[in-house]
């Protein structure tokens, strides 16, 4: 690394500062200073930049330069922070008041030291207007600051007072303001307004007592309406009590007198009186001694329907009995009785039994559906129906006949393998598996290295390919073994029946 130019910064002759969060960002410190402060982090203090950090902090750090606690806060009473410590456990009154205001317990501890001012740290954050924000529901601990009167000058470097940057004046000029003020006053007014009478329409819909209003003649005052309403409502309550006075009866009548009496009113009054008087004696339920009364009343009411004998004298009479002959209902009743009689007597008579036998032709001929319905799924697994293929030849033609094999042809069954099974006796799927395995083997062997030395990657590839192929072969073998087992058993059975017992299978 020779000939390297001098770097931008010579580490040995420089000072390094790290931006850290200030640990004493409480009300005692300068409210215009930020949460973060530069703290010196390197150890060689020969070089110092007096302009970078405040002089008193620099002094702190300089006390004991080699100690690692050089910039630690000192404990007892040194520095401006601890100047105002109260005596004993009593806190000054204003402090206590503020603690109580915030809802913190009043136990002599100054919780205000743990408060942190919310400052504007991330200048990159933007305000997004949330149209659905409800500011009146904002909890008490949220404060709004009105900064509309702040003018931030474009020349952000210098201000009148030295040492105070303009950007920090925003906080000082913004005044705390009630949150409700921030919101549009019209909106708050509407939201707070519980009395919605302002929104009542001029065209009023039906009032509650529109019936009474309609019944009143014109020129009536509204007080009468109210009185009437009140009296009627009180009547409604009193009506269901057992005690009812005539005074009350007079009530609605009196007020009813004030309007033009109509014939309906008289009838109503009568009925009302009767109703009231009857209720005085009885109550809601009817007793036995009032049956006659009721019956008479019913008779009166149903006069026009010509119901005679509405009162049951001795025995119970079905309505049909009281029907006279000349009515239509009488005929209907008669017919009903006739049919009923017929029905009852029917079972006793001898009937003609009509036997309808099914035609034998139809029952004996079986159609497809019938046949299929007799099949059970136990033996016939549902499968795709296909056309039956050609009968496959079990033995492939021998490609290379041995010399001297005269009679050898297609009918020689060769036994091979550990289990000495006939070669082409097994079903085709095994051959497919073998074919697949062979294919795979064949394909993998192609990228063999041509150049003399193979690189690491090629070797890796080759080895990976080999591994794969071996894995496949193992899987295939496992499957084949499984197949083999069932076939072996079948072959055993077959051989046991047919072949000579000297043939040893497995």
């Amino acid at each position, binding site marked *: 690394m020779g000939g390297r130019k001098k770097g*931008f*910064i*010579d*580490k040995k*002759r*420089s*000072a*390094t*500062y*790290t*931006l850290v969060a200030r640990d004493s960002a409480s009300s005692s410190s300068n409210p215009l200073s*930020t949460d*973060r402060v*530069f703290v010196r*982090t390197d150890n060689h203090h020969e*070089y*110092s*930049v*007096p*302009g*970078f950090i*405040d*002089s008193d902090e620099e002094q702190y750090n300089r006390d004991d330069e080699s100690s690692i606690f050089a910039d630690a806060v000192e404990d007892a009473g040194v520095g401006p922070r601890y100047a105002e410590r109260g005596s004993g456990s009593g806190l000054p009154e204003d402090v206590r008041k503020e603690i109580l205001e915030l809802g913190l317990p009043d136990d002599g501890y100054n919780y205000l030291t743990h408060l942190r001012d919310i400052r504007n*740290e*991330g*200048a*990159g954050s933007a305000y997004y207007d949330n149209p659905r924000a409800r500011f009146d529901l904002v909890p008490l601990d949220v404060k709004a600051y009105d900064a509309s009167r702040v003018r931030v000058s474009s020349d952000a*470097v210098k201000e009148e007072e*030295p*040492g105070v*940057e303009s*950007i920090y004046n925003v906080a000082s000029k913004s005044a705390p303001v009630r949150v409700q003020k921030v919101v549009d006053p019209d909106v708050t007014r509407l939201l707070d307004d519980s009395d919605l009478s302002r929104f009542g329409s001029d065209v009023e819909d039906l009032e509650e007592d529109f019936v009474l209003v309609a019944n009143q003649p014109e020129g009536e005052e509204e007080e009468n309406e109210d009185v009437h309403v009140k009296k009627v409502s009180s009547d409604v309550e009193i009506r269901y009590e057992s005690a009812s006075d005539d005074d009350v009866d007079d009530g609605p009548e009196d007020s009813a007198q004030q309007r033009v009496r109509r014939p309906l009113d008289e009838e109503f009054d009568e009925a009302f009186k009767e109703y009231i008087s009857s209720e005085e004696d009885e109550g809601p339920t009817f007793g036995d001694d009032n049956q006659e009364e009721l019956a008479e009343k019913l008779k009166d009411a149903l006069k026009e329907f010509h119901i005679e004998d509405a009162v049951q004298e001795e025995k119970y009479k079905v309505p049909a009995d009281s029907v006279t002959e000349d009515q239509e209902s009488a005929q209907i009743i008669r017919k009903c009785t006739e049919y009923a009689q017929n029905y009852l007597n029917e079972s006793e008579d001898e009937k003609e039994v009509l036997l309808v036998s099914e035609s034998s032709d139809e029952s004996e001929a079986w159609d497809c559906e019938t046949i299929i319905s007799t099949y059970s799924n136990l033996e016939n697994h549902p499968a795709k129906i296909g056309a039956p293929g050609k009968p496959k030849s079990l033995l492939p033609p021998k490609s290379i006949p041995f010399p001297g094999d005269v009679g050898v042809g297609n009918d020689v069954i060769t036994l091979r393998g550990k289990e000495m099974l006939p070669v082409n006796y097994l079903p085709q799927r095994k051959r497919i598996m073998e074919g697949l395995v062979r294919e795979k083997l064949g394909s993998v062997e192609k990228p063999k290295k041509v150049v003399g030395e193979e690189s690491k990657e090629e070797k890796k590839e080759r080895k990976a390919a080999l591994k794969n192929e071996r894995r496949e072969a193992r899987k295939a073998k496992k499957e084949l073994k499984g197949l083999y087992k069932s076939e072996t058993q079948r072959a055993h059975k077959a051989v046991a029946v047919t072949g000579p017992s000297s043939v040893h299978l497995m």
Partner: protein
Amino acid sequence: MAAAVGYGAMKQTKLGVEESHDQLNRIRITLSSRDVKNLEKVCADLVKGAKDKQLRIKGPVRIPTKVLNITTRKSPCGEGTNTWDRFEFRIHKRVLDLISSPDVVKQITSINIEPGVEVEVTIADV
């Protein structure tokens, strides 16, 4: 070089917190963070701020990201298939070089810090 030394001597005898634009230092600002977006934002802001004040600024130089990997077994006991968790932690670092007076730098860096971005300032003589 003599002038620079003289400058340095002059600086050290000065007391107080006077800001003057005359003293220039070489300042290297190193920003590191786990979050690229915030980091790039802070970088851009610093560059913009410096350019507004017509300072000579070089950068941001992107130091290669350091990836710290932790690979642990997922299982609290040793039982089961051997599954592994791979956690990683990326630290991005950007370096800016300025030539200006330190007070200006202090202003700029104090204003626009996003959370999670660590700022280190190295000051040396010009």
